[in-house]
């Protein structure tokens, strides 16, 4: 045994901060991997009997609708397609790899593998939405059961699972609100009220559906301003669209008064429950008087975020609003399940068919695996984790949690790095990017930044105490670095798949390029070999 060996054995303790480096494949754009004649998959050949009987109908297409040159797609053998995408996959940092608490408002919890397996069953994957209901009783029962579960969780009377994601569910709720007022001949209601700490889609969907948007800002304590609501509510109010707890993680204890004020003005109230993870089994939309609510099945109910969808939204309504639900609804007569399209007051279709079925199966399986106690334990643990992480984070010099000082938060906290930023010139965004050099990351916040230099952390129930300690230690380390070597942080990431972008071309119509063909043309590369 050499002396050198003795110095390296046994293995020394790990350093306090992980030595991380992301995969960096420096992968070309797929068109650059093209090799003429290579094939990835082969479509089945047409049988000779058909060929002989029919000839080539494509050749008979009139010239104005016939494609003359094959599309200029890349040509790759199967291995090279697989390898390219396997490499790109390694250049991402999702829930399965990092302590994904930095994507506040998004509830980056663990998505159970067994639910993915169930959702991939051929009994679902190869099911067509227009099959006779006698051949789809299984999925219809799952949809019906999920509706019953969401009813119990929210207190609402009926649900639709049709919307493709959370924002689509907000839009569906606004469309139902519009149909409700129209059905009563109540035509003057052209305003929707929301809050600045509710998701931007509340404002944007209302505007898309034709409403003027009034946005309430927080009062000194961080609650949406009650006086501003009183001033805004009128005979022009169609609805209040509000999140609670808001994106600050602060629960608005006067929420039922908000609802009452809007009801007294003749408006409806829709509860954006994207932030429901901390209140499952604790408090319900219906108990605060809401007429409508929606859940994001890809947040609270664990379906994977999938790079930004497929997701799933679910809208709950009271009996009074039920006639306006999108068609069809799922009905059960005690022996069989069926789709009911005969709903004359319905707003019609929000998306094709009935919803994102694989995520409906996943969400159902997730709830089934937890039951009432488990759901409550999810909520309580998410809240405990959040308050524990807040406790750790607020010990880092330079960070604060504006509003409701000294109070507990529900499932997330919107922090501010204002002090550190003033001291060092390092922005919150820089700190989040530097965190990526240690195998995690965070996202600042939705705009506008009412909380300066924001960071929103939402630890969900999935992460262990050690995960939260590690995450806080990384933030502390990065904040220390900002003081010691601001340029190091400002030029981060250094250990990610790539380095900082030049932003100029992305906002310049002369240079922006959303496709390879546009890039090659604008950069003058057409006709040149790379």
């Amino acid at each position: 045994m050499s002396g050198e060996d003795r110095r390296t054995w046994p293995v020394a303790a790990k350093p306090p901060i992980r030595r991380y480096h992301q995969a960096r494949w420096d992968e070309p754009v797929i068109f650059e991997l093209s090799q003429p004649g290579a094939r990835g998959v082969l479509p089945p050949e047409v049988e000779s009997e058909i060929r002989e009987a029919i000839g080539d109908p494509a050749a008979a297409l009139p010239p104005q609708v016939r494609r003359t040159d094959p599309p200029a797609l890349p040509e790759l053998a199967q291995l090279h397609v697989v390898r390219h995408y396997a490499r790109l996959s390694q250049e991402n940092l999702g829930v399965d790899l990092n302590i994904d608490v930095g994507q506040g408002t998004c509830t980056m919890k663990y998505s159970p593998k067994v639910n993915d397996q169930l959702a991939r069953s051929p009994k679902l994957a190869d099911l067509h939405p227009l099959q006779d209901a006698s051949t789809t009783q299984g999925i219809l029962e799952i949809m019906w059961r999920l509706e019953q579960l969401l009813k119990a969780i929210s207190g609402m009377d009926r649900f639709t699972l049709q919307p493709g994601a959370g924002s689509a569910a907000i839009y569906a709720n606004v469309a139902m609100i519009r149909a409700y007022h129209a059905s009563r001949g109540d035509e003057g209601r052209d305003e929707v009220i929301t809050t600045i700490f509710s998701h931007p889609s509340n404002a944007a969907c209302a505007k898309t559906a034709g409403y003027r948007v009034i946005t309430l800002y927080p009062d000194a304590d961080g609650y949406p301003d009650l006086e501003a609501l009183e001033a805004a509510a009128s005979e022009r109010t169609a609805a209040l669209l509000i999140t609670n707890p808001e994106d600050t993680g602060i629960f608005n204890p006067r929420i039922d008064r908000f609802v009452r004020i809007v009801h007294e003005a003749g408006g409806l109230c829709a509860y954006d429950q994207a932030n429901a993870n901390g209140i499952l089994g604790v408090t319900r939309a219906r108990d605060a008087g809401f007429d409508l609510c929606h859940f994001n099945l890809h947040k609270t109910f664990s379906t994977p975020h999938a790079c930004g969808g497929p997701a799933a939204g679910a809208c709950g309504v009271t009996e009074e609003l039920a006639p306006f639900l999108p068609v069809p609804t799922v009905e059960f007569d005690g022996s069989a399940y069926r789709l009911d399209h005969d709903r004359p007051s319905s707003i019609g279709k929000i998306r094709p068919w009935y919803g994102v079925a694989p995520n409906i199966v996943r969400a159902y399986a997730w709830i089934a695996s937890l039951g009432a106690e488990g759901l409550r334990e999810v909520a309580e643990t998410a809240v405990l984790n959040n308050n524990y992480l807040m406790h750790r984070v607020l010990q880092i010099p330079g960070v604060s949690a504006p509003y409701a000082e000294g109070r507990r938060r529900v499932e997330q906290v919107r922090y501010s790095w204002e002090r550190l930023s003033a001291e060092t010139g390092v922005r919150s965004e820089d700190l989040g990017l530097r965190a990526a050099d240690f195998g995690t990351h965070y996202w600042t916040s939705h705009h506008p930044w009412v909380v300066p230099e924001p960071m929103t952390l939402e630890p969900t129930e999935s992460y262990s105490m050690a995960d939260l300690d590690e995450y806080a230690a990384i933030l502390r380390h990065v904040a220390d670095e900002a003081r010691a070597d601001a340029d190091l942080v400002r030029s981060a990431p250094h250990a990610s798949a790539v380095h900082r972008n030049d932003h100029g071309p992305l906002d310049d119509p002369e240079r922006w390029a959303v496709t390879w063909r546009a890039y090659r043309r604008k950069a003058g590369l057409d006709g040149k070999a790379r």
Partner: protein
Amino acid sequence: MSSTDDTPVHPYIPNAAPATRDAMLRAIGASSVQDLYADIPVHLRMTEPLDVPPALRSEAELVRHVEGLLSRNTSTREVLSFLGAGCYPHHVPAVCDEVNSRAEFLTAYAGEPYEDHGRFQALFEYASMMGELLEMDVVNVPTYDGFQASATALRMAARITGRTEMLVTAAIGPDELSKIRGYLAPELAVELLPFDPATGETDVDALRSAVGERTGAVLLKTPTFLGVVETRVDEMATIAHGAGALVVASVDPSTLGVLRPPAAWGVDIACGDLQPLGMHQLYGGGHAGFIATQDDPRLVMEFPSRLFGITSTRVEGEYGFGDVAYERTSFAVREEGKEWVGTAAALWGITAGVYLALMGPRGMVELGEGMMARTRYAIGRLGSIPGVRVPFAPSHHVKEFVIDVAGTGRSAATVLSGLLERGILGGVDLSASFPELGQPVLVCVTEVHTKADLDRLAEALGEVIG
């Protein structure tokens, strides 16, 4: 409510272990988790546990339960299916499932362009390959589905032209039309353009007389909902453009190996659904919508979706990807943005990119040619059955066509249930939405169907009718 020493900790909730929970409570100076809910007024708190069934805590119990439910479905693997109408039975290459099942993609979300570089590049490449199929320079990060894509394309056209009337082909599915009408309300009006009962193609004369100075856009579908290829597209585009309207075309990307790309016949905004490109039918859960234009800032600035562009980084020879013109979006400016943007269907976009990379130029051409040949063969077989009429038989079809069974004296529903008894999902009953076609059934034929499948359908239909 919390785990005690004798109940096992739930595998999804590590900190539910009592010792851990107590340590964390001590650290934050709380005596119980209930303390943390102090801001929720007592009168709003639930006093009873949720009324839901007992937990299936073990994976074995859960699998048995959910598989038991799913087993009550009869999938299209167990029968012979000719159902299409917007959700198509194409072969899904194994590599598509492999890539979109990878946890690195499946569990990523909304990271920055650096630690999520792979997601940005894969979506840029998706857009680039769609751009080649469509011969257009700008393609969005997918929206929810093709219906949303059509509806948003029309709203984009309204904003660009400042006009409020939209002409929409009547050869569109009732569900898509429902979505469009709802989404265009209240400001924008929809007027339908009839289709020629002989050919199934949109009536060009009707377009000529309907289009005017209030027309913001003309929405065509090709192939139409009834499966017919629109052939007078240049004429219709010229008419629309002559009136200052935009042309919006909803196209099926699986047909674009044989059909002329929309950009070549004057389409301003192309849109459609990606499900045919590598997504399973999933009971209608496999949809994603694309919207595409040429690289004109007037059009680009009206996209609500995210657009991922290519740029340089601080390292020479390194590609970076990021948001193009982000200030358009509701993420940046809330209700001042274009419609809204949010989580939609990105992973299906990545999957469609994988599909196009696997198929390549030849694959897309062979796919289109093969579907056209099989469909034409099926038209011949079914059309020769006494009493069965193929209303638009002389027109060009790629993967769908209508048969009218009124001449058999039976309803479409009766015929379809007779076929189902023989293990065949024979098509979609359109008698409620297109009564002018008699007892119409929309039949879908793709590359997965063999000559034997088509012969079996014809024989079974003959039996049911005979």
